[in-house]
């Protein structure tokens, strides 16, 4: 009897209570091992019920509230019939239409995952937004410089120059990863200096992966020549590796060979300098012949733009995919940023990504020495408010 009374009260209450928004926060989905291709989905539900949906830590979608709810159910793997029922209870829509819309939404996302070359505006009816043009509640990526140490004999020319008082220990980095995940950052890249000099690197990658983050490693590759070390890293769930390449280094050649044989996405970065510009094309062909399919390019100075553009043309002719916006040396001088410079598009630094130094200080990006706060000590909100672009807007 008591139950019936409560039910009646609840039913009456339900008549007059508008449905609540889904809980704002981050949601994650990883394709099961038997999926045709591995993929990761990260959904960030915002307080205004819109959503940011990130596919494989690279493709950024902005969703209206209805699409955000469908994405939520996609990530939660809710059966289609339940989704239709839930949506029709919350919205003025019949279950049949809700079911159709959910199936269509799923197919659009699956098509985008399985056919990354497809133009989603033309073929999937998506709208296009300029990169980094939207207000967001947290960056898409955190670049963590675990150390500024370099291997013996390494050329320090490309290494960050800021001196730091100390390096954070493992627990402190875990605290930073906790904060980043809670803020809604889905992707972390471990960089340096040379991050493989940190003995706790695999522990930190594993920690990030267990939280649900996509993890990447930017390295000179020398330690990856050791198959056991590489295997140890791969056991953590590491998603992608970028080798900052010195093709004359034989150890790196072995690292490329080992990594290509492993189940991890590999990108090779070449920095075009005045010294290597003449033989860069030869290096590129050598990389392509070795099986490298993804490439990152930057130029050490703006005057090398023609050489950089020629390399970009050559890489396309060789069928190599271009990756950009990762925290590589001279990352601002990449082919795409130079090509779109005249369009005055907003930068992703301090907005789509942030950079954490070995002592926890946060910069908008590598090489922009403006400290926004310390991610270990300061609240996330304070750092985010301090970020350059938000500061400009406010």
């Amino acid at each position, binding site marked *: 009897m008591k139950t019936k009374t409560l039910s009646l009260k609840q039913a009456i209450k339900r008549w007059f*209570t*508008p449905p609540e928004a889904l809980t704002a926060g981050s949601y994650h989905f990883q394709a099961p091992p038997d999926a045709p291709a591995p993929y990761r989905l990260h959904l960030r539900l915002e307080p205004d019920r819109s959503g940011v949906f990130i596919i494989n830590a690279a493709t950024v979608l902005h*969703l209206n509230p209805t699409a955000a709810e469908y994405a939520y159910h996609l990530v939660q793997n809710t059966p289609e019939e339940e989704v239709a029922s839930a949506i029709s209870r919350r919205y003025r*829509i019949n279950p049949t239409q809700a079911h159709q819309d959910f199936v269509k*939404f799923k*197919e659009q996302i699956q098509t985008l995952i399985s056919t990354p070359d497809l133009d989603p*505006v033309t073929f999937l*009816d998506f709208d296009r937004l300029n990169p980094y043009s939207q207000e967001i509640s947290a960056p898409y990526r955190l670049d963590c410089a675990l150390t500024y140490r370099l291997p013996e004999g390494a050329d320090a020319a490309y290494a960050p120059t800021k001196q730091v008082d100390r390096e954070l220990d493992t627990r402190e980095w875990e605290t930073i990863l906790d904060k980043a995940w809670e803020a809604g950052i889905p992707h972390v890249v471990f960089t340096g200096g040379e991050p493989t000099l940190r003995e706790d690197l695999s522990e930190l990658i594993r920690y990030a992966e267990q939280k649900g983050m996509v993890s990447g490693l930017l390295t000179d590759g020398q330690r990856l020549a050791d198959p056991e070390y590489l295997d140890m890293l791969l056991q953590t769930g590491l998603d992608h590796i970028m080798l900052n390449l010195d093709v004359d280094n034989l150890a790196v050649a072995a690292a490329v060979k080992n990594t290509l044989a492993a189940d991890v996405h590999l990108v090779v970065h070449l920095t075009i300098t005045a010294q290597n510009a003449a033989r860069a094309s030869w290096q590129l062909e050598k990389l392509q012949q070795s099986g490298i399919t993804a490439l990152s390019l930057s130029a050490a100075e703006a005057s090398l733009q023609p050489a950089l553009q020629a390399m970009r043309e050559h890489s396309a*002719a060789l069928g190599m995919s271009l990756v950009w916006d990762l925290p590589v040396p001279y990352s601002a001088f990449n082919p795409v940023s130079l090509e*779109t410079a005249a369009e005055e598009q907003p930068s992703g630094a301090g907005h789509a990504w942030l950079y954490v130094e070995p002592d926890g200080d946060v910069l908008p990006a590598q090489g922009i020495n403006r400290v926004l706060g310390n991610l270990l000590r300061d609240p996330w909100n304070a750092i985010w408010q301090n970020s350059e672009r938000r500061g400009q807007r406010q």
Partner: protein
Amino acid sequence: MRKFLTIVFLLALAVGYTALFSATDLARAETYYFRLTQETVNIFWNSDGTQSLDYVLVFENSPTADNLAYVDLGLPNGNFDMGTIYADVDGKPITDITTSGYQGSGSGVALGLGNYAIRPGKVGRVHAFVGVIQKVLYEDSSDNTYASAVFAPVTFGSQYMYGETDLTVTFHLPPGMAPEEPRWHEDKTADGFPKQPSSVYDAESRVTYTWRNAHADASKQYTFGASFPLKYVPESAIVRVTFIDVILGGILMIVGATSELCIPVLVIGGFFGLVGLSAYSDRKRRMQYLPPKISIEGHGIKRGLTAIEAAVLMEQPPDSILTMILFALIKKNAAEVVSREPLEIKKIEPMPEDLRYYEKEFINAFDEKGAARRRALQDTMIHLIRAVSEKMKGFSRKETMAYYEDIRKRAWAQVEAANTPEVRSQKFDEVMEWTMLDRDFNDRTRDVFRHQPVYVPVWWGRYDPGYHRHTATPSFNRPSAPSISSGGGLPSVPGADFAASMVTGVQNFAGSVIGNVNDFTSRVTQSTNPVPVSTSSGGSGGGGRSGGSSCACACACAGCACACAGGGR
């Protein structure tokens, strides 16, 4: 009557508007009669969700009336902060500002003009500023991600006034908004106002909407509205109208209106009313459904493609694309046609250094014969398509195609606008590769050149083996060449022959080099667009073009070779 007004008010809220009830009254013992020559109101929709108002009212008091001693200023609701109200008359502050003295409808304040009362026959400018009014924003009834901001300026009883009013209403929307984000409401009650407000930034870089009517009737209620994304104001600032508000209003109305009716009527009516209301409330409490909308971050136009790469992107037939490569080689002095039927070319040594990879592959293909040559050309096409696909990653295919389509149109326009055969021939030489993006290239070439002679470019002899290159006359193949005022001495051919020769070149490729275009294309697309792998969840799909295919572009059609390019990162 008061209860009825409450109902009306609640129902007005239920449709999602900031119903501002601001009928201002001057009904006191005195005889009021005036003209309101100007009413200017600035409404600031603040980032904390509050509203600020700034009124300027210019009264012209009638010579026959009493002093205009009070102005009742209606406000949107009772949630205003008295401490933030300021008023002056002709710049002289007044302090007699009370709620108790207000005699208008709804909420508001009475402005006692005191010593600055506007005397008969005189003009007075009353200025009032209200700093903080809360609970003025509602959820937009047509888009639940937007806030609705609606405002109606003060009105005065028609019995007190005469003449027209220059009425200006300006909304200052919350800071930080891009011009394309807010929307104005179209309100049929705002007769005489432009349908579309003027929009500029104010001094604080806030987007403004301004409506103005120099011949307005200040006794008439005009309503103005705008909506903007909810994210610009705190969620807590939005007034959510639950259906219980409407129900309570309904009960009040029934009680007020049926006090003389018998109880049974109320009971029966109440029962059916409750059933109806419950069904209605269940529907009404649910959120408005908007179709799912997905936007992707990506760059727009991919600039820097060659005409040949643009042709691939625009899904030109492979014979056209290969012909374009042939012309590019001939113009670069890298190849020469030695026979048209069957088409045979030879390399010109030394080869230029600036050849592109597809040009090198193309010319090397002609070292082969028959099927081997055809396969080599197919490989060239495959490499070209894949390279364009790689280049287009992260860029918009749609916008890029529109960009190159525009280049094509402008190329033809330049050729067609030329007044003389010399200039026309020179322009055509300069932009020929872009005109070849035209699917109607053959017909258009015939139309443009058929009636006038064409002064052939210097490379013509390398293209047409039958053409006698007995003259070494310099021609116009370089854009930097001085313009030619006369055709005297330049080699020329009849326009019809020139056009026929160009068109034949394209047709020859299909006929004598690649054979059947469909078969040729088939092998290319099998490689660039393999048979789709089903990725569908098994549903029947929502129609459209998104049904789990590996490549949805039009490359399945015969005679085109789609790059399937673009998008994403």
